[in-house]
């Protein structure tokens, strides 16, 4: 069963995606079919998995020198004085 357009929009907003109207209707159908397929999981045996935990680091946690900041900032779309530049969180005029 296709997802509703409202459901698709809500998921897109959570996923920080802005979909075109064409994408919204395409994904409503495609995601609906995939979710229906996933519904078969109801027919299989389940066992509670062990609580999710990050695997314990097997290596000693020793501070190491890291790569130079400039190397990483070279990939930044916008940077100034060793910092990343972004538009204002509150909207235009704050950047």
């Amino acid at each position, binding site marked *: 069963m296709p997802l509703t357009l409202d459901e698709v929009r809500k998921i897109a907003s959570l996923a920080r995606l802005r979909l075109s109207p064409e994408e919204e209707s395409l994904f409503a159908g495609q*995601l609906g079919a995939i979710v229906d397929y*996933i519904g078969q999981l109801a027919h299989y045996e389940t066992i509670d998995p062990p609580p999710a935990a990050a*695997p314990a680091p097997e*290596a000693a946690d020793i501070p190491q020198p890291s790569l130079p900041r400039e*190397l990483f900032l070279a990939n930044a779309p916008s940077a100034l004085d060793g910092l990343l530049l972004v538009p204002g*969180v509150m909207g235009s005029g704050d950047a």
Partner: protein
Amino acid sequence: MPEPWELGAEEIAQRVAARELSAAEVVASALDRTARVEPLVAAYLAVYDEEARAAAAELDSRLAAGEPAGRLAGVPIVLKDNLSLAGKPLTCGSKILAGYVAPYTATAVERLLAEGAVVLGRANMDEFAMGSSTENSAYAKTRNPWDLARVPGGSSGGPAAAVAAGSAALGFGSDTGGSVRQPAALCGVVGVKPTWGRVSRYGLVAFASSTDQIGPVARGVRDAALALSVVAGPDPRDSTCAARPGEDYLAGIEEGVRGLRVGILREVDPGALAPAAQRNWSASLELLARAGAEPVEVSVPSLGAAIAVYYVIATSEASANLARFDGVRYGRRAEAESLLDLYLRSRSEGFGAEVKRRIMLGTFALSSGYYEAYYGRARGVLEGMRRQVEAAFQEVDLLVTPTAPGGAFALGEKVDDPLAMYLSDIFTTPASLLGLPAVAVPSGADDEGLPLSLQIMGRPFDEATVFRAARAFEREAGWRVAPAFRGAEAAPAPAG
């Protein structure tokens, strides 16, 4: 006398070490072959012609000066475009990473370079390794060297096609749900998905962290075993990499399968295979038995749930891992007036359709109100499957299945039907979800001459037994990697 590009990795390294062949000759031959096959196959996103020649010449002078030769001396390799090589672009087949230059080199790649391998270039892939045909690349359509109208498989379609076409002796990709094994199968070469934790992932762009592994593609099992021997082993820079030391997988590889108990899963439905694949599957089992393996039927009742479990768990992890592509620190940034607008526009313009679909699916599976019904349920079914497979491994040493349900499909055939595309991973996802080592080994061809493949899975960290069985199978099967380039006006000469 075969041309150097026709030689396998092991033979190249031996001959270069013995100074019978120079690294420069090998690399020149591989680049020449690449120039001939690349217009047909389009496996590469970039060929590093000058750097490869320079690296080979430097290696030759070091050998001339008496330095010891590495285990991959002079071996031309190709890297999937999600493996970092410092100073080189890295795009993951995505527009969102256009212009990104890797600031450091992946541990696995460092180890290859330290053993004398020469990087010929970076190879095409489905965007962020999401796909089974390499058609989701934002940059190129790679073609199957056996039939240019067909897909090479995916997501490591570039490395698999390059190795099959004779351009590189080894390819390296990442396998999250079958992304090394399935393209290896469709291109008629050997592909390896090591145990989760066997190979460091430092420098590999993450897709689904609970299953991602780096693995080699090669034209023979011995070369694949050699390649894994080089890259496997602990790495302080990746805390998910196991502390177990690396192994020499060539050591016992010729010991054969006599006495090994090989599990055949009752749940593999021959009716779900293409007719030729069905016949090939039966023949493969007979061949294993003829080589001395003892077939044992085992049951994993939850096997049929693998695709559903995989597409919940992998997309959930992807939705979190790909949150980092937001236009702030690297990659494509859209013009925007606010930070939120910048996220939305950069991501929407930068990601392709399949990546958006999977991020959406994972976001849905993790969202409030659906988490238990989807993510929670998938983890529960997976735990059930894990117990069943552990019980099976009490009875057997290995499990075998076909690698893919059939030979390579046509370009465009499944691109509009994501679910049909997902089902090509039916046999490869279980080993990914359970972290098991698995090797795809060519098992013959279908009626149209397209390669088919057998998958051999083992217990965690028992790659040695998997390679041993794959090698025995390869010897019996007598497969030759000699793609026909069907559809080309003038096909390049196959390997001799």
